[in-house]
């Protein structure tokens, strides 16, 4: 499903985002991606949906090398990948329906069909009744669920989440996590980048730990497992760093 071979990303100016990463993520897996700020989590995700290009190495998504994908084919790749961000990235002047209906519209669905499709997707995230609301009328958790609905509307093979619970309180984070688990149960491969070690501990599954752009650990944990010391230390170090400095804004390599 997703394979990385010796993937390195060096940004202009020499900052290393990822360093010789090798890994394979099978179809239908839920994978947590963790590590301190600047470890390369966001870079990792951006490389998969081709927001960034690898400096060297190969990234195969469903057998296609996305590193060598021509620019005009990137949109077609992105239609198979849903992406969710910490900052939701909703358009404030558009309704919930309009926010999530971009893809159905560009795929040529009629108005009725778009609404039906949006309704069904919003029902999956428990927001069918807020279809005509504007983002400012929604809570943070609801806004994130709209963002998830937007990512899910084309039933993607892969769902990438970059700190999706970062702006939410623990209860809402729990709610959003449950949603991701449900989505994963329906067969979607999920890569969930997070700082929240409690969340990782509670759910378990596969945990990839990045440090300085390198894959430091690749653990398969059952739910309720206490994280191995190195991963735990990595998360703690990350927490310390977070306490010292606020989150890097979206768009910077992280």
């Amino acid at each position, binding site marked *: 499903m997703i394979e990385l071979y010796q993937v390195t990303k060096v940004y202009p100016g020499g900052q290393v985002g990822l360093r010789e990463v090798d890994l394979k993520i099978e179809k239908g897996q839920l994978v947590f991606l963790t590590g301190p700020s600047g470890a390369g989590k966001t870079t990792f995700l951006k490389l998969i949906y081709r927001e960034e290009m690898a400096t060297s190495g190969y990234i195969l998504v469903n057998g296609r090398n996305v590193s060598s994908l021509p620019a*005009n084919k990137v949109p*077609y790749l992105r239609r198979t990948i849903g992406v969710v961000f910490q900052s939701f990235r909703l358009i404030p002047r558009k309704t919930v329906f309009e926010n999530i209906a971009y893809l159905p519209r560009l*795929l040529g669905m009629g108005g009725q069909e778009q609404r039906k499709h949006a309704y069904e997707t919003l029902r999956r995230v428990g927001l069918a009744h807020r279809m005509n609301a504007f983002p400012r009328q929604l809570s943070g958790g609801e806004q994130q669920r709209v963002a998830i609905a937007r990512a899910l509307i084309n039933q993607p093979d892969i769902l990438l989440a970059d700190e999706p619970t970062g702006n939410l309180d623990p209860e809402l984070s729990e709610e959003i996590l449950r949603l991701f688990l449900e989505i994963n149960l329906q067969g979607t491969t999920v890569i969930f980048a997070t700082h929240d070690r409690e969340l990782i501990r509670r759910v378990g599954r596969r945990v990839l730990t990045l440090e300085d752009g390198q894959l430091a650990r690749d653990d398969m944990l059952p739910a309720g497992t206490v994280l191995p010391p190195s991963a735990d230390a990595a998360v703690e170090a990350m927490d310390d760093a977070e306490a010292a400095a606020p989150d890097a804004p979206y768009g910077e390599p992280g």
Partner: protein
Amino acid sequence: MSLFQALIYFFREAAVNLVRGWKVSLLAILTITVSLFLGGVFLLASENLRSRLDQWRDESRLVVYLDTGVEAAARQRVRALIETAPALVEVQIIEPDEASERFLRAFPSLADLLEGWGEEPLPASFEVRLDWSQVEKERFDPWLQGLSADVAVTMVDDDRDWLEQLEAAVIVLEGLAFVLGLVLLATAVFTISSVIRLTAYLYHDEIAVMRLVGATEFFIRGPFYIEGFLQGLGGGLLATGLLAGGHRLLTHEAGDVLVASMLIDRFLSPGQLVALVALGAGAGLLGAIVSLRRENLGATAENPEEWAEQE
């Protein structure tokens, strides 16, 4: 999505953008209106002057003045020479009496002048009408030289001399109009490009989301192209409307004034009006293309047909 569906979407989004940013859109439309209106005024003036020039050229004659008291044989010789003219249409002898009558009709206040000149104040002449469109310079010039050299001929008056000077003036005017039109159009393109760039900036969050969910560049840029096109089209329609209104007003109010009559004799043809509107729409589209290139929204727009096939 088919190309038709995409166009419907583009037009709808462009209309929303135009309404939301109506003030800047109006500025862009007015800039292009002024440009095309001034361009249209110059076109109208040059068209009318050229039409008048063509009319004068068609009516222009070659007048061959004979010496006073020239004998019949000499007249016959000159006439025979004239009849060898290239593309001759008509030749007519104007006797001194008729020449005097014409002079008096044209300048009645100068009647005294003729009286002082005795019996034959004006010489006989031949008026020669040629089909100027068929006249070849290589044949005409030697013929004219031969005619002028005849002893019975005192002067050959060619109307085309001053018509050529007038034509040169019209060409200069057209050149100036062309340059001015280009400058004004470039201003309009720049204004529209700035407006579109501003709109693209205002919608950058939406563009980012569209790109994220897999919208092609064609789909992202389409509404902006159509927005520029509509602004240009609006400017073109407004300019032609103003031209028509102005022409009608001028015809009604100042039709008797010589200069005005030279400019309003005929209005622009439907083809020219369509071209003016198309120029506006094209300038708007160009403005949008320039603006989005500057904004570097992403990769080059894809081939819409290929895109439509893959949807």
